[in-house]
């Protein structure tokens, strides 16, 4: 008997079920339950207007937020942010965003994988969640995850039309548009932090020190 068989048999014996393994009917019942994708009860904050709540929650999480009128204004907005923060350095960005006119705004936009020396990483996101001020990033060949992790500053472009109310809504959108989860589904709520020394909150642990959101239409 393998460990797998032993464990499954023990579970069945303890549950008062006969047979060494789950029956087809039992497995079908589990699949039926899963297929219902049943949502749990929601708090009232889940009905707040998503955009306003998203901005408020970002600020609470110590993310910063800027807004532009058109996607083409993003490079200028980023240039302003970099100048304000004395970060006039090359940025490493997602290949999917290299179509924007970065050089026109004076930005050295490097379209490659992020490394430990990069100070600024630029991504967009699949969607964002109003309830908790969360960015949802999906991995793919043109959207690698390390851009949002290794650099000290993570700049994320968020379309207002992609801000949903709850995590349940975000997962529903993901199922509708992509069918299945990618290798990495990454939900980011503010810059990294730790409180492991004397329960004192420090912003900036192993991930970014700053998360800057640029809202587009």
């Amino acid at each position, binding site marked *: 008997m393998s*460990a*797998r068989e032993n*464990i*499954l048999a*023990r*579970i069945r014996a*303890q*549950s*008062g*079920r006969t047979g060494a*393994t*789950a029956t087809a009917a039992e*497995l079908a019942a*589990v*699949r039926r*339950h*899963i297929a219902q*994708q049943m*949502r*749990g*009860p929601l*708090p*009232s*904050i889940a009905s707040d207007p998503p955009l306003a709540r998203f901005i408020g*929650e970002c600020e*609470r999480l110590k993310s910063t937020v800027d807004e532009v009128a058109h996607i083409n204004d993003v490079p200028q907005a980023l240039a302003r942010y970099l100048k304000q923060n004395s970060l006039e350095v090359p940025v490493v960005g997602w290949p999917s965003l290299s179509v924007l006119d970065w050089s026109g705004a004076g930005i050295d936009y490097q379209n490659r*994988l992020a490394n430990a020396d990069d100070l600024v990483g630029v991504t967009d996101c699949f969607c964002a969640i109003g309830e908790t001020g969360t960015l949802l990033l999906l991995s*793919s*060949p043109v959207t*690698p*995850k*390390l851009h949002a*992790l290794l650099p000290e500053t993570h700049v994320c472009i968020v379309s207002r039309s992609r801000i949903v109310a*709850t*995590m349940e809504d975000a*997962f529903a959108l993901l199922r509708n548009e992509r069918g*299945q*989860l990618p*290798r*990495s*589904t*990454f939900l*980011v*709520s*503010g*810059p*990294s932090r*730790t*409180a*492991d*020394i*004397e*329960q*004192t909150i*420090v912003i*900036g*642990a*192993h*991930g*970014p020190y700053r998360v800057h959101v640029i809202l587009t239409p």
Partner: protein
Amino acid sequence: MQVKSMHFKATSSAKLNDAVLQTALKRAKGKFVDGRAAAVAEIDAWEDIRTHAAALRDRVIANLDAYLIEFEQNAVARGAVVHWAETAEQANAIIVKIAQDNAVKIATKSKSMVSEEIALNDAMEAVGIEVVETDLGEYILQLAHEPPSHIVAPAVHKSKEEVADLFVAAHGRPRLTDIPAMTREAREVLRSKFLGADMGISGANFVIAETGTTLTVTNEGNADLVTTVPRIHCVVTGIEKVIPTLEDFATLIRLLPRSATGQSAANYLTLTTGVKAPDELDGPEQMHVVLIDAGRTKLVGSDMKEMLRCIRCGACMNHCPVYQNVGGHAYGWVYPGPMGSVLTPTYVGIENAGDLPNAATFCGECEVVCPVKIPLPDLMRKWRERQFDQALRPFGERFSISVWNAFATRPALYAASTRIAARVASWWGGKERRITWLPGLDGWTDGRDMPAPAGKTFRELYSARQKLAARHKP
């Protein structure tokens, strides 16, 4: 991990006199208790969400074999390899073999209590593999060669001065005591480990049956690097961590960070599903999931099955008056506080952890704050009953309980004897009306006096009052 729970009494006495620990515990108590209260107050549907969460965990536990098979099928379909381990030894052998088959030299780890249970680091180091803990708290403890004292804040017992000394010894840099600067130093030192590791080992807060996903809930970003950079990702988790759907995760994550640290959201939720595609720039080429029993199946279908709902938030210990005073190390194994007092006897044997279910005032706070409504005091009481039935408590204690039982189950005898006892105790209190010493109970009276009783029992007073009331009836 080596079990030291049998030394609970001696260790907890020492911990009460440890000034550094007492300062740390007081600081942590305020932050955790107040933080949770504020975060929970934002959620008006808190009780409904708790009820729903408890029910969804129960549903899985009642059909655990089928949910595990469903998870396995979906994980394998995405390229993961699912391993099963009945014991800690089997789990370690599986993980060591994965590492050796792939010529792994450095493995980075994110925080995993299951890996503490099985003492994975020792097993890896025994075959010459460097294992690096990357959660800041766990990293500090790895330098100190100490086990965690809390399941969410593992180094909660350490002062920054102690951490500063450890960093000087390990890093050879100037001594820093500014906490943000110390955190940066750890970040800089660990960067090369993150990027140089061949294997990343993580736990899983949950695994999702629907999608074959494993996931971590963190704040530092370390688990995200551990599961992204190395070419092999190995997940170590208990068989009870499976949940049906993404919707269920959304429900549970409204409860977990609020209960744990008082955060409305954890910084990073990382859902990992399978291996990277050939044209992806980052992500692991191999993903292994090791599902561990190590005692969990004993709880399935038992009178303590509610314990398997646990989502490891730590709220029960944060709110426990015993934990708040003795800290986590006194409990002598991986899981401290009320949840540990139920789990430790199950996993390592009640004969090795007999004091734990007795180290409770039964104030009930743990059950009140538990996000999945585990009846922790009831479960500890069940352990006490089993200890009595199996004659595992000291003779004096069992004898006293038997005597009590003989009186308490005979109402007339009970009434007569308490009438006598109340009068004797009243006389014993003397002119001062205080009882300062009781034969055989010095341990109790050494530290406190007891006010002398009035001389009559409750029943006597009650029946006298009833008579009086009857006389005054019109």
